[in-house]
Protein backbone atom coordinates (compact mmCIF):
# COMPACT_ATOMS: atom_id res chain seq x y z
CA UNK A 1 0.00 0.00 0.00
CA UNK A 2 2.74 2.38 0.99
CA UNK A 3 4.68 1.61 -2.18
CA UNK A 4 1.56 2.30 -4.21
CA UNK A 5 1.04 5.69 -2.57
CA UNK A 6 4.61 6.79 -3.02
CA UNK A 7 4.70 5.66 -6.64
CA UNK A 8 4.81 8.28 -9.31
CA UNK A 9 1.53 7.20 -10.89
CA UNK A 10 -0.53 7.66 -7.74
CA UNK A 11 -0.82 11.46 -7.70
CA UNK A 12 -1.47 11.57 -11.44
CA UNK A 13 -4.25 9.00 -11.13
CA UNK A 14 -5.71 10.94 -8.19
CA UNK A 15 -5.70 14.19 -10.18
CA UNK A 16 -7.25 12.48 -13.19
CA UNK A 17 -10.04 10.96 -11.09
CA UNK A 18 -10.76 14.27 -9.36
CA UNK A 19 -11.06 16.30 -12.59
CA UNK A 20 -13.18 13.53 -14.14
CA UNK A 21 -15.61 13.27 -11.22
CA UNK A 22 -15.78 16.95 -10.30
CA UNK A 23 -18.29 18.05 -13.02
CA UNK A 24 -20.90 15.77 -11.44
CA UNK A 25 -21.12 18.42 -8.70
CA UNK A 26 -21.41 21.43 -11.02
CA UNK A 27 -24.89 22.96 -10.75
CA UNK A 28 -24.48 25.18 -13.86
CA UNK A 29 -22.24 25.87 -16.85
CA UNK A 30 -20.82 28.84 -14.96
CA UNK A 31 -18.98 26.32 -12.77
CA UNK A 32 -17.53 24.67 -15.87
CA UNK A 33 -16.22 28.05 -16.96
CA UNK A 34 -14.57 28.84 -13.61
CA UNK A 35 -13.13 25.32 -13.33
CA UNK A 36 -11.71 25.53 -16.86
CA UNK A 37 -10.05 28.85 -15.97
CA UNK A 38 -8.62 27.32 -12.79
CA UNK A 39 -7.11 24.41 -14.72
CA UNK A 40 -5.63 26.66 -17.42
CA UNK A 41 -4.00 28.90 -14.81
CA UNK A 42 -2.85 25.84 -12.88
CA UNK A 43 -1.17 24.59 -16.05
CA UNK A 44 0.80 27.81 -16.41
CA UNK A 45 1.47 27.68 -12.66
CA UNK A 46 2.98 24.20 -12.89
CA UNK A 47 5.37 25.37 -15.59
CA UNK A 48 6.46 28.40 -13.58
CA UNK A 49 6.71 26.24 -10.46
CA UNK A 50 9.27 24.04 -12.20
CA UNK A 51 11.34 27.17 -12.70
CA UNK A 52 10.73 28.83 -9.31
CA UNK A 53 10.18 25.92 -6.96
CA UNK A 54 12.68 23.46 -8.36
CA UNK A 55 15.36 25.46 -10.17
CA UNK A 56 14.97 28.39 -7.73
CA UNK A 57 14.82 31.06 -10.46
CA UNK A 58 12.15 33.74 -10.25
CA UNK A 59 10.40 35.12 -13.34
CA UNK A 60 8.20 38.21 -13.18
CA UNK A 61 7.64 38.16 -16.94
CA UNK A 62 6.01 34.85 -17.74
CA UNK A 63 2.84 36.53 -18.98
CA UNK A 64 4.94 37.40 -22.02
CA UNK A 65 4.88 33.72 -23.00
CA UNK A 66 1.17 33.53 -22.24
CA UNK A 67 0.88 36.43 -24.68
CA UNK A 68 2.89 34.62 -27.37
CA UNK A 69 0.63 31.57 -27.06
CA UNK A 70 -2.54 33.66 -27.02
CA UNK A 71 -1.59 35.80 -30.01
CA UNK A 72 -0.35 32.74 -31.94
CA UNK A 73 -3.86 31.25 -32.08
CA UNK A 74 -5.25 34.66 -33.03
CA UNK A 75 -2.66 35.77 -35.62
CA UNK A 76 -1.98 32.31 -37.12
CA UNK A 77 -5.48 31.69 -38.48
CA UNK A 78 -6.36 35.28 -39.42
CA UNK A 79 -3.08 36.47 -40.99
CA UNK A 80 -1.31 33.28 -42.05
CA UNK A 81 -4.20 30.93 -42.74
CA UNK A 82 -2.94 28.27 -40.35
CA UNK A 83 -5.49 26.01 -38.64
CA UNK A 84 -5.94 26.86 -34.93
CA UNK A 85 -4.44 23.58 -33.65
CA UNK A 86 -1.31 24.14 -35.73
CA UNK A 87 -1.11 27.76 -34.50
CA UNK A 88 -1.16 26.38 -30.96
CA UNK A 89 1.99 24.36 -31.65
CA UNK A 90 3.62 27.20 -33.61
CA UNK A 91 3.02 29.43 -30.57
CA UNK A 92 4.56 26.84 -28.25
CA UNK A 93 7.58 26.46 -30.55
CA UNK A 94 7.98 30.22 -30.84
CA UNK A 95 7.83 30.58 -27.04
CA UNK A 96 10.49 27.90 -26.72
CA UNK A 97 12.76 29.67 -29.21
CA UNK A 98 12.28 33.07 -27.54
CA UNK A 99 12.88 31.53 -24.09
CA UNK A 100 16.01 29.81 -25.39
CA UNK A 101 17.41 33.05 -26.83
CA UNK A 102 16.61 35.32 -23.85
CA UNK A 103 17.16 32.66 -21.22
CA UNK A 104 20.91 32.37 -21.53
CA UNK A 105 21.79 36.00 -20.69
CA UNK A 106 18.86 36.52 -18.29
CA UNK A 107 19.49 33.42 -16.18
CA UNK A 108 23.05 34.52 -15.48
CA UNK A 109 21.53 37.19 -13.23
CA UNK A 110 20.50 36.53 -9.65
CA UNK A 111 17.99 37.76 -7.06
CA UNK A 112 16.54 41.23 -7.61
CA UNK A 113 18.45 41.61 -10.86
CA UNK A 114 16.87 38.47 -12.28
CA UNK A 115 13.48 39.73 -11.10
CA UNK A 116 13.84 43.10 -12.84
CA UNK A 117 15.26 41.58 -16.04
CA UNK A 118 12.40 39.08 -16.45
CA UNK A 119 9.96 41.84 -15.55
CA UNK A 120 11.44 44.12 -18.19
CA UNK A 121 11.31 41.32 -20.75
CA UNK A 122 7.61 40.65 -20.03
CA UNK A 123 6.73 44.33 -20.28
CA UNK A 124 8.66 44.65 -23.56
CA UNK A 125 6.54 41.87 -25.05
CA UNK A 126 3.29 43.45 -23.83
CA UNK A 127 4.37 46.81 -25.32
CA UNK A 128 4.94 45.08 -28.66
CA UNK A 129 1.48 43.43 -28.49
CA UNK A 130 -0.09 46.82 -27.74
CA UNK A 131 1.73 48.81 -30.40
CA UNK A 132 1.84 46.49 -33.43
CA UNK A 133 -1.81 47.24 -34.14
CA UNK A 134 -1.68 46.08 -37.77
CA UNK A 135 -0.89 42.54 -36.61
CA UNK A 136 -2.38 42.32 -33.11
CA UNK A 137 -5.28 44.75 -33.28
CA UNK A 138 -3.61 47.07 -30.76
CA UNK A 139 -5.13 47.84 -27.35
CA UNK A 140 -8.58 46.60 -28.44
CA UNK A 141 -7.20 43.16 -29.26
CA UNK A 142 -8.44 40.82 -31.93
CA UNK A 143 -10.96 37.96 -32.26
CA UNK A 144 -9.79 34.36 -32.06
CA UNK A 145 -11.42 31.76 -34.36
CA UNK A 146 -12.90 28.66 -32.80
CA UNK A 147 -10.78 25.56 -32.32
CA UNK A 148 -11.86 22.79 -34.70
CA UNK A 149 -10.48 19.28 -34.13
CA UNK A 150 -11.31 16.53 -36.63
CA UNK A 151 -14.48 18.33 -37.66
CA UNK A 152 -15.58 18.89 -34.04
CA UNK A 153 -15.79 22.56 -33.01
CA UNK A 154 -14.92 23.26 -29.38
CA UNK A 155 -17.64 25.56 -28.11
CA UNK A 156 -19.07 26.27 -24.69
CA UNK A 157 -17.61 26.06 -21.21
CA UNK A 158 -18.23 22.34 -20.92
CA UNK A 159 -16.06 21.44 -23.93
CA UNK A 160 -13.33 23.75 -22.64
CA UNK A 161 -13.47 22.18 -19.22
CA UNK A 162 -12.62 18.79 -20.72
CA UNK A 163 -9.90 20.16 -22.97
CA UNK A 164 -8.22 21.97 -20.09
CA UNK A 165 -8.73 18.97 -17.78
CA UNK A 166 -6.96 16.59 -20.17
CA UNK A 167 -4.16 19.13 -20.75
CA UNK A 168 -3.80 19.68 -17.03
CA UNK A 169 -3.44 15.96 -16.32
CA UNK A 170 -0.87 15.61 -19.12
CA UNK A 171 0.99 18.69 -17.84
CA UNK A 172 1.03 17.33 -14.30
CA UNK A 173 2.28 13.93 -15.48
CA UNK A 174 5.09 15.48 -17.51
CA UNK A 175 6.11 17.77 -14.66
CA UNK A 176 6.17 14.95 -12.08
CA UNK A 177 8.15 12.85 -14.52
CA UNK A 178 10.69 15.62 -14.97
CA UNK A 179 11.06 16.12 -11.21
CA UNK A 180 11.70 12.42 -10.73
CA UNK A 181 14.36 12.30 -13.44
CA UNK A 182 18.11 12.99 -13.09
CA UNK A 183 17.36 16.48 -14.45
CA UNK A 184 14.87 17.04 -11.63
CA UNK A 185 17.44 16.05 -9.04
CA UNK A 186 19.99 18.30 -10.73
CA UNK A 187 17.51 21.19 -10.53
CA UNK A 188 16.99 20.67 -6.82
CA UNK A 189 20.73 20.60 -6.35
CA UNK A 190 20.94 23.97 -8.15
CA UNK A 191 18.17 25.31 -5.93
CA UNK A 192 20.06 24.29 -2.78
CA UNK A 193 23.43 25.60 -3.90
CA UNK A 194 24.55 26.55 -7.37
CA UNK A 195 28.19 26.29 -6.43
CA UNK A 196 27.80 22.83 -4.94
CA UNK A 197 25.83 21.71 -8.01
CA UNK A 198 28.59 22.95 -10.28
CA UNK A 199 31.22 21.19 -8.23
CA UNK A 200 29.21 17.96 -8.64
CA UNK A 201 29.54 18.33 -12.39
CA UNK A 202 26.05 19.64 -13.16
CA UNK A 203 25.92 22.01 -16.12
CA UNK A 204 24.05 24.69 -14.17
CA UNK A 205 23.51 27.12 -17.05
CA UNK A 206 22.17 24.42 -19.36
CA UNK A 207 19.75 22.97 -16.79
CA UNK A 208 18.41 26.39 -15.85
CA UNK A 209 17.93 27.25 -19.52
CA UNK A 210 16.18 23.96 -20.14
CA UNK A 211 13.63 24.45 -17.37
CA UNK A 212 13.12 28.08 -18.44
CA UNK A 213 12.22 26.85 -21.94
CA UNK A 214 9.89 24.17 -20.53
CA UNK A 215 8.11 26.67 -18.30
CA UNK A 216 7.71 29.03 -21.28
CA UNK A 217 6.01 26.24 -23.28
CA UNK A 218 3.59 25.58 -20.39
CA UNK A 219 2.74 29.28 -20.23
CA UNK A 220 2.33 29.47 -23.99
CA UNK A 221 -0.07 26.51 -24.00
CA UNK A 222 -2.11 28.12 -21.21
CA UNK A 223 -2.17 31.38 -23.17
CA UNK A 224 -3.45 29.65 -26.32
CA UNK A 225 -6.23 27.94 -24.36
CA UNK A 226 -7.18 31.20 -22.68
CA UNK A 227 -7.47 32.99 -26.02
CA UNK A 228 -9.39 30.14 -27.70
CA UNK A 229 -11.69 29.85 -24.69
CA UNK A 230 -12.50 33.57 -24.62
CA UNK A 231 -12.66 33.97 -28.40
CA UNK A 232 -10.76 37.24 -27.96
CA UNK A 233 -7.26 38.32 -27.10
CA UNK A 234 -6.18 41.72 -25.74
CA UNK A 235 -2.74 42.94 -24.58
CA UNK A 236 -3.98 42.54 -20.98
CA UNK A 237 -3.38 38.81 -21.37
CA UNK A 238 0.36 39.48 -21.38
CA UNK A 239 0.35 42.37 -18.89
CA UNK A 240 2.41 42.89 -15.76
CA UNK A 241 -0.58 42.03 -13.57
CA UNK A 242 -0.92 38.65 -15.27
CA UNK A 243 2.74 37.85 -14.57
CA UNK A 244 2.15 38.71 -10.93
CA UNK A 245 -0.93 36.51 -10.82
CA UNK A 246 1.17 33.61 -12.09
CA UNK A 247 3.90 34.11 -9.51
CA UNK A 248 1.20 34.46 -6.85
CA UNK A 249 -0.32 31.11 -7.92
CA UNK A 250 3.05 29.42 -7.49
CA UNK A 251 4.01 31.08 -4.22
CA UNK A 252 0.54 30.88 -2.64
CA UNK A 253 0.13 27.21 -3.49
CA UNK A 254 3.64 26.41 -2.40
CA UNK A 255 6.91 26.58 -4.29
CA UNK A 256 8.04 23.11 -5.27
CA UNK A 257 4.59 21.59 -4.86
CA UNK A 258 2.92 20.66 -8.15
CA UNK A 259 -0.46 20.15 -6.47
CA UNK A 260 0.20 23.51 -4.79
CA UNK A 261 -0.06 25.20 -8.18
CA UNK A 262 -3.57 23.81 -8.57
CA UNK A 263 -4.48 25.03 -5.08
CA UNK A 264 -2.93 28.44 -5.84
CA UNK A 265 -4.93 28.69 -9.06
CA UNK A 266 -8.12 27.79 -7.20
CA UNK A 267 -7.46 30.54 -4.64
CA UNK A 268 -6.58 33.19 -7.22
CA UNK A 269 -9.36 32.41 -9.68
CA UNK A 270 -12.23 31.42 -7.39
CA UNK A 271 -11.71 33.66 -4.39
CA UNK A 272 -11.92 37.01 -6.26
CA UNK A 273 -15.02 35.74 -8.12
CA UNK A 274 -16.65 34.61 -4.89
CA UNK A 275 -15.71 37.64 -2.80
CA UNK A 276 -16.36 40.47 -5.21
CA UNK A 277 -19.90 41.47 -5.82
CA UNK A 278 -18.76 44.46 -7.83
CA UNK A 279 -16.15 44.36 -10.54
CA UNK A 280 -14.39 47.45 -9.13
CA UNK A 281 -13.34 45.60 -6.00
CA UNK A 282 -11.44 42.95 -7.95
CA UNK A 283 -8.01 44.60 -7.85
CA UNK A 284 -8.20 45.54 -4.19
CA UNK A 285 -9.25 41.95 -3.46
CA UNK A 286 -6.42 40.40 -5.47
CA UNK A 287 -3.88 42.60 -3.69
CA UNK A 288 -5.32 41.80 -0.29
CA UNK A 289 -5.37 38.03 -0.95
CA UNK A 290 -1.74 38.07 -2.09
CA UNK A 291 -0.63 40.10 0.96
CA UNK A 292 -2.56 38.13 3.56
CA UNK A 293 -1.47 34.72 2.27
CA UNK A 294 2.15 35.82 1.94
CA UNK A 295 2.26 37.21 5.45
CA UNK A 296 0.56 34.33 7.24
CA UNK A 297 1.31 31.30 5.03
CA UNK A 298 4.61 32.31 3.55
CA UNK A 299 5.67 28.80 2.62
CA UNK A 300 2.52 28.35 0.62
CA UNK A 301 -0.75 26.60 1.35
CA UNK A 302 0.14 23.00 0.51
CA UNK A 303 3.54 22.82 2.31
CA UNK A 304 2.08 24.61 5.37
CA UNK A 305 -0.87 22.23 5.51
CA UNK A 306 1.45 19.27 5.06
CA UNK A 307 3.41 20.34 8.13
CA UNK A 308 0.28 20.95 10.18
CA UNK A 309 -1.19 17.57 9.27
CA UNK A 310 2.13 15.88 9.87
CA UNK A 311 2.73 14.50 6.37
CA UNK A 312 6.49 14.40 6.41
CA UNK A 313 8.49 12.95 3.58
Amino acid at each position, binding site marked *: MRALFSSRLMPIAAVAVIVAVLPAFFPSTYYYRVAALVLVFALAGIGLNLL*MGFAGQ*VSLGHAGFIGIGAYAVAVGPSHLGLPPWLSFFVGAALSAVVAFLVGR*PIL*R*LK*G*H*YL*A*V*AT*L*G*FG*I*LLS*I*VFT*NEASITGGPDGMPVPRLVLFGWAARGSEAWYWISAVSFVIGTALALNLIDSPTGRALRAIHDSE*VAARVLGIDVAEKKLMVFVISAVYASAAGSYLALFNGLVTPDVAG*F*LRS*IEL*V*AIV*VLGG*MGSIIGSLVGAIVLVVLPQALTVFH*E*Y*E*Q*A*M*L*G*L*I*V*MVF*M*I*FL*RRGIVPSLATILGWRK
Partner: protein
Amino acid sequence: MAELLQFIFSGLTVGAVYALVALGFTLIYNASDIVNFAQGEFVMLGGMTTVFLGLAGVPLPIAALIAVIATVAVGVALHRLAIEPARGAGPVVLIMITIGASIFLRGVAQIVFDKSFHSLPPLFGTDPIRVGGAAILPQSLIVLAGAVVIVVLLWVFIDRTLFGKAVIATATNRLAARLVGIDTRRIGDFSFAVSAAIGAVAGILVTPIAPTSYEVGTLLALKGFAAAMLGGMGNAVGAVVGGVLLGLLEAFAAGYLSSQYKDAVAFLIILAVLFAMPQGLFGRAKVDRV
Protein backbone atom coordinates in the same frame (compact mmCIF):
# COMPACT_ATOMS: atom_id res chain seq x y z
CA MET B 1 19.97 72.15 -31.75
CA ALA B 2 16.72 73.60 -30.42
CA GLU B 3 15.21 70.17 -30.82
CA LEU B 4 17.98 68.54 -28.80
CA LEU B 5 17.56 71.17 -26.07
CA GLN B 6 13.83 70.50 -26.01
CA PHE B 7 14.41 66.78 -25.50
CA ILE B 8 16.92 67.53 -22.74
CA PHE B 9 14.35 69.71 -20.93
CA SER B 10 11.60 67.10 -21.08
CA GLY B 11 14.07 64.33 -20.24
CA LEU B 12 15.33 66.17 -17.18
CA THR B 13 11.80 66.78 -15.92
CA VAL B 14 10.74 63.15 -16.25
CA GLY B 15 14.16 62.07 -15.03
CA ALA B 16 13.75 64.11 -11.84
CA VAL B 17 10.59 62.15 -11.04
CA TYR B 18 12.29 58.82 -11.79
CA ALA B 19 15.20 59.92 -9.62
CA LEU B 20 12.88 60.62 -6.69
CA VAL B 21 11.14 57.26 -7.06
CA ALA B 22 14.53 55.54 -7.33
CA LEU B 23 15.72 57.40 -4.23
CA GLY B 24 12.68 56.15 -2.33
CA PHE B 25 13.47 52.61 -3.46
CA THR B 26 17.08 52.94 -2.37
CA LEU B 27 16.19 54.32 1.05
CA ILE B 28 13.89 51.41 1.86
CA TYR B 29 16.23 48.87 0.27
CA ASN B 30 19.14 50.09 2.38
CA ALA B 31 17.25 50.30 5.64
CA SER B 32 15.35 47.04 5.38
CA ASP B 33 16.60 44.97 2.40
CA ILE B 34 13.21 45.23 0.76
CA VAL B 35 12.42 46.10 -2.83
CA ASN B 36 9.24 48.09 -2.42
CA PHE B 37 7.09 47.77 -5.52
CA ALA B 38 4.44 49.99 -3.93
CA GLN B 39 6.79 52.98 -4.38
CA GLY B 40 4.88 54.15 -7.47
CA GLU B 41 1.62 54.08 -5.50
CA PHE B 42 3.08 56.69 -3.12
CA VAL B 43 3.47 59.00 -6.12
CA MET B 44 -0.07 58.23 -7.23
CA LEU B 45 -1.51 58.76 -3.73
CA GLY B 46 0.21 62.14 -3.40
CA GLY B 47 -1.19 63.42 -6.68
CA MET B 48 -4.66 61.90 -6.42
CA THR B 49 -5.29 62.90 -2.80
CA THR B 50 -4.33 66.50 -3.56
CA VAL B 51 -6.57 66.56 -6.62
CA PHE B 52 -9.59 65.20 -4.78
CA LEU B 53 -9.15 67.36 -1.68
CA GLY B 54 -8.83 70.30 -4.06
CA LEU B 55 -12.09 69.31 -5.78
CA ALA B 56 -13.71 69.11 -2.33
CA GLY B 57 -12.83 72.77 -1.79
CA VAL B 58 -9.70 72.45 0.35
CA PRO B 59 -7.10 75.14 -0.58
CA LEU B 60 -4.33 73.45 -2.60
CA PRO B 61 -1.36 74.04 -0.23
CA ILE B 62 -3.32 72.48 2.64
CA ALA B 63 -4.56 69.69 0.36
CA ALA B 64 -0.95 68.96 -0.62
CA LEU B 65 0.13 68.88 3.02
CA ILE B 66 -2.68 66.50 3.97
CA ALA B 67 -1.83 64.34 0.95
CA VAL B 68 1.80 64.01 2.06
CA ILE B 69 0.75 63.18 5.64
CA ALA B 70 -1.79 60.62 4.42
CA THR B 71 0.79 58.98 2.15
CA VAL B 72 3.31 58.85 5.00
CA ALA B 73 0.65 57.15 7.13
CA VAL B 74 0.09 54.59 4.37
CA GLY B 75 3.85 54.02 4.12
CA VAL B 76 4.26 53.42 7.86
CA ALA B 77 1.16 51.21 7.92
CA LEU B 78 2.63 49.19 5.05
CA HIS B 79 5.81 48.66 7.06
CA ARG B 80 4.09 47.84 10.34
CA LEU B 81 1.22 45.69 9.05
CA ALA B 82 2.72 43.93 6.04
CA ILE B 83 6.52 44.00 6.11
CA GLU B 84 7.34 43.61 9.83
CA PRO B 85 5.12 40.53 10.37
CA ALA B 86 6.88 38.81 7.45
CA ARG B 87 10.42 39.59 8.57
CA GLY B 88 12.76 36.72 7.82
CA ALA B 89 10.77 35.48 4.82
CA GLY B 90 12.54 34.86 1.52
CA PRO B 91 13.05 37.61 -1.05
CA VAL B 92 10.34 36.28 -3.39
CA VAL B 93 7.78 36.34 -0.56
CA LEU B 94 8.74 39.91 0.40
CA ILE B 95 8.58 41.05 -3.24
CA MET B 96 5.14 39.47 -3.53
CA ILE B 97 3.96 41.28 -0.39
CA THR B 98 4.95 44.69 -1.73
CA ILE B 99 3.48 43.87 -5.15
CA GLY B 100 0.30 42.75 -3.37
CA ALA B 101 0.32 46.06 -1.48
CA SER B 102 0.75 47.94 -4.74
CA ILE B 103 -2.20 46.15 -6.38
CA PHE B 104 -4.25 46.67 -3.21
CA LEU B 105 -3.55 50.41 -3.02
CA ARG B 106 -4.36 50.76 -6.70
CA GLY B 107 -7.62 48.89 -6.22
CA VAL B 108 -8.56 51.02 -3.23
CA ALA B 109 -7.69 54.24 -5.10
CA GLN B 110 -9.94 53.09 -7.92
CA ILE B 111 -12.83 52.81 -5.45
CA VAL B 112 -12.12 55.85 -3.25
CA PHE B 113 -11.20 58.19 -6.12
CA ASP B 114 -12.15 57.21 -9.67
CA LYS B 115 -10.74 55.83 -12.89
CA SER B 116 -10.22 59.05 -14.86
CA PHE B 117 -7.14 61.19 -15.35
CA HIS B 118 -6.78 64.33 -13.23
CA SER B 119 -4.53 67.34 -13.29
CA LEU B 120 -3.63 70.21 -10.97
CA PRO B 121 -3.20 73.89 -11.91
CA PRO B 122 0.51 74.73 -12.31
CA LEU B 123 2.08 76.97 -9.67
CA PHE B 124 3.30 79.70 -12.02
CA GLY B 125 1.02 79.57 -15.02
CA THR B 126 1.31 77.73 -18.30
CA ASP B 127 3.38 80.23 -20.34
CA PRO B 128 6.49 78.37 -21.44
CA ILE B 129 9.87 80.03 -20.93
CA ARG B 130 11.89 80.23 -24.15
CA VAL B 131 15.52 79.14 -23.91
CA GLY B 132 17.65 78.89 -27.06
CA GLY B 133 14.69 78.07 -29.30
CA ALA B 134 13.30 75.43 -26.95
CA ALA B 135 10.48 75.88 -24.46
CA ILE B 136 10.34 74.83 -20.83
CA LEU B 137 7.29 75.02 -18.59
CA PRO B 138 7.68 76.87 -15.29
CA GLN B 139 6.28 73.77 -13.58
CA SER B 140 9.17 71.70 -15.01
CA LEU B 141 11.58 74.04 -13.25
CA ILE B 142 9.62 73.55 -10.04
CA VAL B 143 9.85 69.75 -10.42
CA LEU B 144 13.61 70.03 -10.94
CA ALA B 145 14.04 72.45 -8.03
CA GLY B 146 11.88 70.23 -5.82
CA ALA B 147 13.98 67.19 -6.68
CA VAL B 148 17.22 69.05 -5.90
CA VAL B 149 15.86 70.33 -2.58
CA ILE B 150 14.71 66.85 -1.55
CA VAL B 151 18.00 65.22 -2.49
CA VAL B 152 20.03 67.87 -0.61
CA LEU B 153 17.79 67.74 2.49
CA LEU B 154 17.97 63.96 2.58
CA TRP B 155 21.73 63.99 2.15
CA VAL B 156 22.20 66.53 4.94
CA PHE B 157 19.89 64.59 7.23
CA ILE B 158 21.54 61.23 6.60
CA ASP B 159 25.07 62.58 6.68
CA ARG B 160 24.86 65.13 9.52
CA THR B 161 22.51 63.79 12.16
CA LEU B 162 22.82 60.98 14.67
CA PHE B 163 19.59 59.43 13.40
CA GLY B 164 21.01 59.51 9.88
CA LYS B 165 24.10 57.70 11.07
CA ALA B 166 21.84 55.06 12.62
CA VAL B 167 20.20 54.63 9.21
CA ILE B 168 23.62 54.12 7.60
CA ALA B 169 24.59 51.68 10.33
CA THR B 170 21.41 49.66 9.77
CA ALA B 171 22.03 49.64 6.02
CA THR B 172 25.59 48.45 6.49
CA ASN B 173 24.88 45.68 8.95
CA ARG B 174 21.48 45.16 10.45
CA LEU B 175 22.52 42.75 13.19
CA ALA B 176 25.50 44.84 14.27
CA ALA B 177 23.27 47.93 14.38
CA ARG B 178 20.86 46.10 16.68
CA LEU B 179 23.75 45.02 18.89
CA VAL B 180 24.88 48.60 19.46
CA GLY B 181 21.35 49.52 20.50
CA ILE B 182 19.82 50.92 17.33
CA ASP B 183 16.10 50.32 17.10
CA THR B 184 16.10 48.92 13.54
CA ARG B 185 12.31 48.75 13.48
CA ARG B 186 12.15 52.50 13.97
CA ILE B 187 14.71 52.90 11.18
CA GLY B 188 12.40 50.81 9.02
CA ASP B 189 9.40 52.99 9.91
CA PHE B 190 11.48 56.05 9.15
CA SER B 191 12.62 54.79 5.76
CA PHE B 192 9.06 53.93 4.71
CA ALA B 193 7.78 57.29 5.99
CA VAL B 194 10.46 59.30 4.17
CA SER B 195 10.09 57.24 0.98
CA ALA B 196 6.34 57.79 1.06
CA ALA B 197 6.83 61.53 1.63
CA ILE B 198 9.33 61.79 -1.25
CA GLY B 199 6.95 59.88 -3.52
CA ALA B 200 3.95 61.99 -2.53
CA VAL B 201 5.83 65.27 -3.09
CA ALA B 202 7.02 64.04 -6.50
CA GLY B 203 3.44 63.11 -7.35
CA ILE B 204 2.08 66.52 -6.35
CA LEU B 205 4.79 68.44 -8.22
CA VAL B 206 4.46 66.49 -11.46
CA THR B 207 0.65 66.27 -11.66
CA PRO B 208 0.27 69.69 -13.38
CA ILE B 209 2.49 68.40 -16.24
CA ALA B 210 1.65 64.70 -16.31
CA PRO B 211 -1.98 63.96 -15.41
CA THR B 212 -2.40 61.29 -12.76
CA SER B 213 -4.81 58.38 -12.40
CA TYR B 214 -5.16 55.42 -10.08
CA GLU B 215 -2.88 53.27 -12.23
CA VAL B 216 0.10 55.55 -12.97
CA GLY B 217 2.02 53.98 -10.08
CA THR B 218 2.94 50.67 -11.73
CA LEU B 219 4.99 52.02 -14.60
CA LEU B 220 6.56 54.66 -12.36
CA ALA B 221 7.61 52.02 -9.84
CA LEU B 222 9.08 49.83 -12.56
CA LYS B 223 11.03 52.69 -14.08
CA GLY B 224 12.14 53.96 -10.70
CA PHE B 225 13.29 50.45 -9.88
CA ALA B 226 15.06 50.32 -13.24
CA ALA B 227 16.73 53.66 -12.54
CA ALA B 228 17.92 52.39 -9.16
CA MET B 229 19.31 49.29 -10.89
CA LEU B 230 20.96 51.39 -13.57
CA GLY B 231 22.74 53.41 -10.92
CA GLY B 232 23.60 50.38 -8.82
CA MET B 233 21.14 49.00 -6.27
CA GLY B 234 21.49 50.58 -2.84
CA ASN B 235 23.55 53.53 -4.01
CA ALA B 236 21.76 56.87 -3.42
CA VAL B 237 23.94 58.86 -5.84
CA GLY B 238 23.48 56.08 -8.37
CA ALA B 239 19.70 56.25 -7.94
CA VAL B 240 19.59 59.97 -8.72
CA VAL B 241 21.99 59.71 -11.68
CA GLY B 242 20.19 56.60 -12.93
CA GLY B 243 16.83 58.36 -12.77
CA VAL B 244 17.99 61.45 -14.65
CA LEU B 245 19.83 59.30 -17.21
CA LEU B 246 16.76 57.14 -17.77
CA GLY B 247 14.58 60.23 -18.23
CA LEU B 248 16.99 61.69 -20.78
CA LEU B 249 17.40 58.44 -22.73
CA GLU B 250 13.65 58.01 -22.81
CA ALA B 251 13.11 61.54 -24.10
CA PHE B 252 15.72 61.04 -26.83
CA ALA B 253 14.19 57.71 -27.80
CA ALA B 254 10.71 59.25 -27.95
CA GLY B 255 12.00 62.20 -29.98
CA TYR B 256 14.37 60.54 -32.42
CA LEU B 257 13.05 56.98 -32.70
CA SER B 258 9.42 56.29 -31.83
CA SER B 259 7.15 57.76 -29.18
CA GLN B 260 5.10 54.53 -29.13
CA TYR B 261 8.13 52.56 -28.07
CA LYS B 262 9.31 55.14 -25.53
CA ASP B 263 8.55 52.82 -22.60
CA ALA B 264 10.11 49.85 -24.40
CA VAL B 265 13.39 51.72 -24.85
CA ALA B 266 13.65 52.24 -21.10
CA PHE B 267 13.37 48.50 -20.49
CA LEU B 268 15.74 47.66 -23.34
CA ILE B 269 18.36 49.91 -21.79
CA ILE B 270 17.85 48.21 -18.46
CA LEU B 271 18.29 44.75 -19.95
CA ALA B 272 21.42 45.92 -21.77
CA VAL B 273 22.89 47.38 -18.58
CA LEU B 274 22.07 44.24 -16.61
CA PHE B 275 23.72 42.00 -19.19
CA ALA B 276 26.79 44.17 -19.67
CA MET B 277 27.42 45.28 -16.06
CA PRO B 278 25.00 43.68 -13.62
CA GLN B 279 26.23 45.80 -10.71
CA GLY B 280 25.03 49.04 -12.35
CA LEU B 281 26.96 52.24 -12.95
CA PHE B 282 27.97 52.99 -9.38
CA GLY B 283 27.58 49.65 -7.66
CA ARG B 284 30.44 47.43 -6.65
CA ALA B 285 30.55 43.89 -7.98
CA LYS B 286 29.10 41.59 -5.37
CA VAL B 287 31.32 38.76 -4.28
CA ASP B 288 29.48 35.73 -2.99
CA ARG B 289 30.83 33.84 -0.05
CA VAL B 290 30.45 30.13 -0.64
